[in-house]
């Protein structure tokens, strides 16, 4: 029996657009309406809600008229200004502060500052850093291992609280309110932390609350209580104070007389995290959300979920590497600048499409790099004694969990797809270049781009999100293969269907695409050359049954990292060759550039260097 909720209106608010929909209950045959209105905020995304409230109001008005009235139930998912902006503090950067950071990130917040005793900043610099940006909350951790005070330790917990307490900034949306401060550290030091924040609390600048320790013992993190506390702050403080959400509140997002904690509203990061967990099915997966103002990466590796958000605004992206023509010219630079200044605009020409793609690739690569820093094995200190005299302390853990050879699926979603500004193929290619998957990696896409809306609908009914991704492509690339040009065969790929068999070759320095007939079950077998490894071990054959729907197999022999020549002209012609291969020579100028680089996108020379 399907117990999904009945008709529900859902709204997805971002800094650049508002999407609203009335979703009919499955099987009920109801009409579903969907609408997107662009906000009018070019820059800065994080500074204010300008235009979002109006766009939301318009979206709901039009929706109500079109659908014949809004249903009684509603849900809101928002990534506006990062959803919720939080600063985190701890004693050691790589231990308690990192744990607090992961807690905040997985609750859907953006971490504006991370402060710790060993962060290299003097006390006054910590205060200046904390004060420099309005926040929605401060999450403080510290004191790993209860009973730490009995051994005389833990004074640092009170110290970091004393350093930060005088410098609390104003809340982002209501400057008259006290700033919510959650202490999620050792329970032994709650009294000392309370006395450190006493002045701020009495002066109406802080609202101190306590949550169970996020790192009660070194090898264990306990995110959930603090996560709930942050979500509660989001609903009780952020949602009701930020003017952008007023239309949703007016439409009844917070039940009349109901507990704000039950409000059906979530930061987008929380919703996407729930989707990634629900979709992992025991596999190691990455979910990338290609937004217009930020790229979010979620990972579930070994059952451990992590999230990061990389803002695109106000940064100078090294996108030249991915541009297929006229490298380094001011025109390309201006195109990239325009893309950042007008995130909602649509590429109308191939040049603009490739400029957008270059920016997406650069941002995606940076987002994964950021994610690798956050998604790590728990770091801790280990004390060892050698004989009776010598003792030493060493750090253990801290290695990144994100190793592409262990990732079997990458899920792609995002605002760009939802708005139709990027095709699923373009999104997949950008992710292949940005993430550089190795082995056999299945790429699944949220083709209609309604992931957040549907997931919010499911969460509102108390269920894990049951959002379907479409398996779109398979990327085949060798592990630990140095980038070598020359078109040498690295593996033979056999794709066997019901009635036919297709063969392909993974060539060094080349990216090629094999098209499949969607809907037919096929299996892919990779026969490596020599001792090359495609995921099953050196020289071992790999076979994978593809799910229905996979339309393409990318044979990526470019090596890792994807090589870029030092010479800009050669670099751009190489990129043009790869794009021409997968797009099928979209335009004369691209195919012209590809022709210079050699047949089939393979580059025949190997003396230009650059990698």
């Amino acid at each position: 029996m399907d117990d999904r909720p009945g008709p529900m209106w859902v709204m997805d608010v971002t800094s650049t657009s508002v999407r609203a929909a009335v979703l009919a209950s499955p099987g009920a045959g109801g009409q579903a309406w969907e609408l997107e209105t662009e906000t009018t905020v070019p820059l800065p995304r994080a500074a204010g809600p300008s235009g979002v409230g109006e766009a939301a109001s318009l979206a709901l008005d039009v929706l109500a008229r079109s659908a014949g009235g809004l249903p009684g139930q509603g849900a809101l998912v928002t990534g506006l200004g990062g959803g919720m902006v939080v600063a985190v503090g701890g004693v050691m950067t790589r231990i308690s502060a990192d744990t607090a950071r992961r807690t905040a990130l997985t609750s859907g917040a953006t971490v504006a500052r991370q402060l710790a005793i060993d962060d290299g900043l003097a006390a006054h610099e910590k205060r200046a850093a904390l004060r420099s940006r309005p926040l929605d909350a401060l999450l403080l951790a510290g004191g790993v291992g209860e009973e730490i005070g009995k051994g005389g330790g833990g004074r640092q917990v009170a110290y970091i609280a004393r350093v930060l307490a005088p410098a609390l900034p104003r809340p982002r949306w209501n400057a008259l309110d006290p700033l919510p401060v959650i202490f999620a550290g050792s329970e032994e030091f709650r009294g000392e932390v309370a006395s450190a924040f006493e002045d701020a609390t009495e002066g109406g600048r802080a609202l101190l609350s306590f949550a169970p320790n996020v790192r009660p013992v070194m090898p264990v993190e306990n995110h959930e209580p603090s996560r709930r506390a942050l979500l509660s702050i989001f609903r009780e403080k952020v949602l009701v104070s930020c003017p952008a959400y007023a239309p949703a509140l007016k439409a009844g997002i917070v039940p009349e007389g109901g507990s704000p904690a039950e409000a059906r509203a979530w930061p987008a990061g929380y919703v996407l995290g729930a989707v990634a967990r629900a979709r992992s099915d025991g596999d190691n997966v990455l979910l990338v959300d290609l937004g217009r103002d930020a790229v979010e990466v979620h990972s579930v590796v070994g059952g451990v979920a992590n999230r990061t958000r990389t803002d695109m605004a106000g940064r100078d992206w090294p996108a030249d590497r991915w541009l297929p023509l006229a490298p380094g010219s001011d025109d390309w630079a201006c195109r990239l600048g325009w893309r950042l200044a007008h995130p909602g605009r649509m590429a109308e020409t191939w040049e603009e499409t490739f400029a957008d793609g270059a920016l997406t690739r650069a941002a995606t690569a940076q987002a994964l790099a950021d994610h690798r820093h956050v998604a790590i094995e728990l770091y801790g200190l280990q004390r060892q004694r050698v004989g009776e005299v010598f003792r030493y302390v060493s750090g253990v853990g801290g290695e990144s969990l994100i190793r592409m050879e262990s990732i079997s699926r990458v899920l792609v979603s995002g605002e760009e797809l939802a708005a139709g500004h990027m095709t699923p193929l373009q999104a997949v290619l950008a992710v292949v270049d940005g993430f550089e998957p190795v082995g056999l990696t299945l790429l699944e896409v949220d083709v209609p781009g309604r992931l957040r809306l549907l997931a919010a609908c499911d969460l509102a009914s108390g269920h894990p999100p049951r959002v379907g991704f479409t398996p779109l492509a398979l990327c085949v690339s060798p592990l630990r293969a140095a980038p070598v040009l020359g078109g040498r065969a690295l593996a033979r790929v056999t794709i066997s269907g019901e009635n036919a068999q297709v063969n392909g070759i993974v060539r060094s320095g080349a990216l090629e695409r094999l098209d499949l007939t969607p809907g037919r079950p096929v299996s892919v077998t990779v026969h490596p050359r020599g001792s090359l490894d495609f995921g099953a071990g050196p020289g071992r054959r790999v076979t994978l049954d593809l799910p229905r729907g996979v339309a393409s197999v990318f044979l990526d022999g470019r090596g890792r990292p994807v090589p870029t020549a030092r010479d800009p002209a050669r670099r751009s012609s190489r990129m043009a060759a790869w794009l021409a291969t997968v797009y099928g020579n979209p335009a004369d100028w691209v195919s012209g550039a590809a022709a210079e680089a050699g047949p089939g996108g393979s580059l025949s020379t190997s003396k230009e260097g650059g990698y």
Partner: protein
Amino acid sequence: MPRPTHPAGHDEFVAASLPVLVVEPELLFSRPLPPGSEVLAQVGETVDAGTVVAFEPTRDRLHVIRLEVDEDGVVGTVIKSVGEECRRGETVCYHHYLFGLGWKEYVSPADGVVDSLDPGGGYLVVREHPRAIRALLPGRVAEVLPDRAVTVRTGGVRLKGLAGSGGPSGGRLLPLPGAVFPPGDVAGRVLAVPGRVDYRFLLDSVLRRAAGVVCETAGRADLARLEAYLSGLTVEELRARAWHAKSSAEPAPALRDAGAESDGQPVGSPDEDVSLPVVLISGYAGAPAMSLEARFWERLRSWEGCHVTLDGRMNVDGEPRQPEAVVALDPARLEIELEAGPVAGAGRERPAVVLAAEGLRVRIVGGPHRGLSGVIDHLPEDPVELPGGRRTRVAGVRLGNVSGEATVMVALANLEAVT
């Protein structure tokens, strides 16, 4: 689940660009204060653009000079005592050796006072004078938050830019007819330039010590070059470059001209950092050239001599921000301007979306015609296919600012209504 359908009019909304030149009787302008600043301003106080509202903290501005010592203490003669003023480059200690054949001088690295002298260790500490934080705009102090900001209330116009660099700074407005310098001094003036400016113009502005540039557009590479040129540049270094350019056989034209026309040296204190905030109202240059409406610049021209403060930074401590310039108008002019009403033309200051319809004035923000403006001529019902297989609805836009009144097809997502 049935595939959702769009309600009627789904694609027919376009973002609206409400008037950019909205004269406001009261607008607030904040001067951020570093922690530990000494605040002088008081709420309700009337301030001028040059009024010092606070001093930056001197805590981090100590310069230690290590003097040579032997068992008897400092070798040489210390000619400045504790508490005495010293200027940058001024000798604070000297000694000669090898029967007068060798000579050594110690000079002050900054304008300040001698804070302490340790004769045994040979440490002489100069405390640099605190740097003043000025109001930059005339008005009345509305709020003082120690360690945070001083907020000034004034009447005028806030110009939002879509891109920029450098800042903050302030000066009096000097509208120019184009990217050509007028005869005379432009030091301390904020230049308002219609159209596109290039690197040469920006470099000239630096050498002539202009306070900033508000213009329609500039190349991204030109701004990047300017930022690289200004990185760590002091007035002293700028003077050296200008002098070198004048005396070299093949001087860079901009440097040579600047030296000649400014009749000597770039002005300013030697250790003052050189900056040139630039605010690009229409963002980075595109092809073809951008075109703000003429009324925009006409109005700016009428404000010549008014105080302007501008900040072109797009990112402060990782936080995105929008470049802006604020023009303060005196009460008499303010009254006239308020009666005149707003001027349309650029920017997206106010939030709105409007229904796309024939006859709507629009600005094109994407595609090959970005930067141009015109009027919606017709709205085809059927979507068109874009590169990569995307489909979208388009509008036929009759361009109003190119010869021949051409009509071009533009995706609705790339239009902004100009109301």
